[in-house]
């Protein structure tokens, strides 16, 4: 099926700095796509290219098979929710929201009707007469959303729209955004540097780093099966253990590490035996045995126990892996209640929970 939008091998330079390097992104109809990456990775640049605010230095930008390069901002069937909202402060909320219809020359009565409808949709039913300056951050956010959806674009671009909100409001707006997207059936391209937010909202996540795509996939897939060290450590926590690939048998691999031979599983094509690899193990997948009689696994000492509410994060030092801190996450229940720094334990994991990654070159 033809994608709604396709960034085909897009590159962008600012002066001598290459900000985007051969980016390939497709957006499907009705999809909630998140572009996730650290600060400066090029997320905003991608969005500005789609919106038409920036040109490109290489590649193509296609919308339903048509090249968009020559289409100016105001003719692209997308609308943007800006990071700072960019509301018109000399207009009331209703005038802000109705702006897209007004400049299209729609009759006043129709505009008023649609504005009322859309304000209802975003939960601002009675606030049409207010000026944005007199509203809270969350309300302004909703005005910006309403303004973007009123013209029924095929795609909405959102640049870190929630980053200015406090935690409580943020969670609430996340739920609202997700349900709004489902109800409207419009594709959302959402930018964030917050991996939890990305996981909670998206149908699909594209991880970008330094102007390149690291990996893309469904949130669960990215979380369970990271393929690059960057993805492994950027999406949630991971213990990364360096080693050299010794042998591959189907999905099962053996890796030579400082702690001896360890097993791991690989998704997709395995690297060549002998190449430098990393084992990635989630903190929640590390087994921990405090029984002094236990003989399985690597001996380790508890360095720190941090209480995080429902969870505890335990940090272990093991002589087998000098310099490495192994993080372990456990439910804060009786099983870990007695654990104190200095205690001796044994740690291990199932081969299935250790993902094999190609080490960064």
């Amino acid at each position, binding site marked *: 099926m033809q994608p709604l939008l396709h960034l085909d091998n897009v590159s962008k330079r600012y002066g001598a700095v290459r900000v985007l390097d051969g980016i390939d992104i497709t957006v499907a109809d009705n999809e909630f796509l998140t572009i996730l990456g650290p600060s400066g990775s090029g997320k905003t640049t991608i969005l500005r290219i789609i919106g038409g605010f920036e040109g490109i230095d290489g590649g193509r930008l296609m919308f339903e098979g048509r090249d968009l390069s020559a289409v100016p*901002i105001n003719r692209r069937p*997308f609308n*943007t929710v800006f990071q700072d909202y*960019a509301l018109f402060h000399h207009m009331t909320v209703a005038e802000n929201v109705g*702006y897209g219809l007004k400049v299209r020359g729609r009759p006043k009565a129709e505009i008023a009707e649609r504005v009322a409808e859309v304000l209802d949709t975003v939960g601002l039913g009675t606030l049409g007469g207010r000026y944005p300056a007199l509203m809270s951050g969350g309300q302004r956010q909703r005005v910006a959303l309403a303004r973007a959806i009123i013209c029924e674009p095929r795609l909405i671009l959102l640049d870190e729209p929630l980053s200015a909100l406090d935690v409580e409001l943020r969670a609430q707006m996340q739920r609202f955004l997700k349900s709004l997207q489902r109800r409207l059936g419009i594709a959302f391209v959402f930018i964030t540097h917050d991996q939890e937010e990305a996981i909670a909202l998206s149908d699909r996540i594209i991880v970008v780093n330094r102007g390149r795509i690291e990996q893309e996939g469904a949130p669960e897939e990215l979380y369970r099966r990271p393929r690059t060290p960057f993805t492994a450590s950027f999406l949630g926590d991971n213990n990364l253990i360096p080693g050299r690939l010794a042998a591959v048998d189907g999905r099962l691999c053996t890796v030579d590490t400082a702690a001896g031979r360890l097993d791991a599983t690989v998704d997709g094509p395995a690297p060549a035996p002998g190449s430098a690899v990393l084992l990635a193990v989630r903190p929640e997948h590390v087994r921990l045995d405090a029984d002094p009689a236990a003989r399985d696994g690597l001996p380790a000492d508890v360095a720190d126990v941090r209480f995080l509410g429902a969870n505890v994060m335990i940090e272990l030092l093991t002589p087998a892996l000098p310099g490495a801190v192994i993080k372990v996450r456990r439910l804060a229940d009786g099983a870990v209640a007695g654990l104190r720094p200095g205690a001796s334990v044994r740690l291990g994991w199932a081969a299935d929970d250790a993902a094999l990654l190609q080490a960064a070159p």
Partner: protein
Amino acid sequence: MKQKAPCLDALLGLVAGLGLIALYAPLLATGALSFFQIVRVRGTLGFAPFSLDPYVALLANGEILAALSTSLVVATVSSLLALVLALMFAFYFVSARRGLGIAMQIMVFLPFLLPPIITGLSLLIAFREIDLGRGLVTIIIAHVVFIVPVVYRTVLVRLQLLGSSLTEASLDLGASRVQTLRYVILPQLRPALISGVLLAFAISFDETLITLFVAGSQTTLPIRLWAMMRVGFVPEINALATLIFLCTAAITFAIGLMQRAGERV
């Protein structure tokens, strides 16, 4: 840091107060003298009782009224023309390449910064070269050249503060460039536009030196006043000066209000 020597405070207050008195005493004197004329009674000087005679005489003085109306026409037309030009220059500056913008800016500012006598002389020579007879038109051109920088500066500051995000938002919502200008940019600039025009109006209204070069047979109010003073003092002058002072004060007050309004947006 809040702790300050009280005697230093008092001293500062005293100096500031004396400064203000020195600045405003002549104005107050002029105002007072427009209502209470000095008269000589049996060889000694004294004040006449309160009277509005100078104001009545002013209204009857056809020459002054004609000069006043010329000045008003010049100030109005030239400040509106300056507004249009300043807007164009300001838009150019924020959109053009940096070097070109700065070059343009220097050209805009130069006539304002040069000694008026140089600006006036250059204009005079230029008008002669192109055979433009001196009169209302040349006065207006000269004033526009002189006040554009003032409006330009006021507008540019506001425009730069505005940044590009509102323009982008407007285009993103499907507006054309012209619609964006009309519905978003100009309303956002309005306080700056009004205060720029008022300021330009006030400057144009009392510009004398450059005007002298290019006025030809036309007479603006400052030139009229100047001429009257040379011939001899008449009480109308006090009345006129008082009126001009009050108008200028009102304009200044309005500019202050506009700038407050601008900050709030």
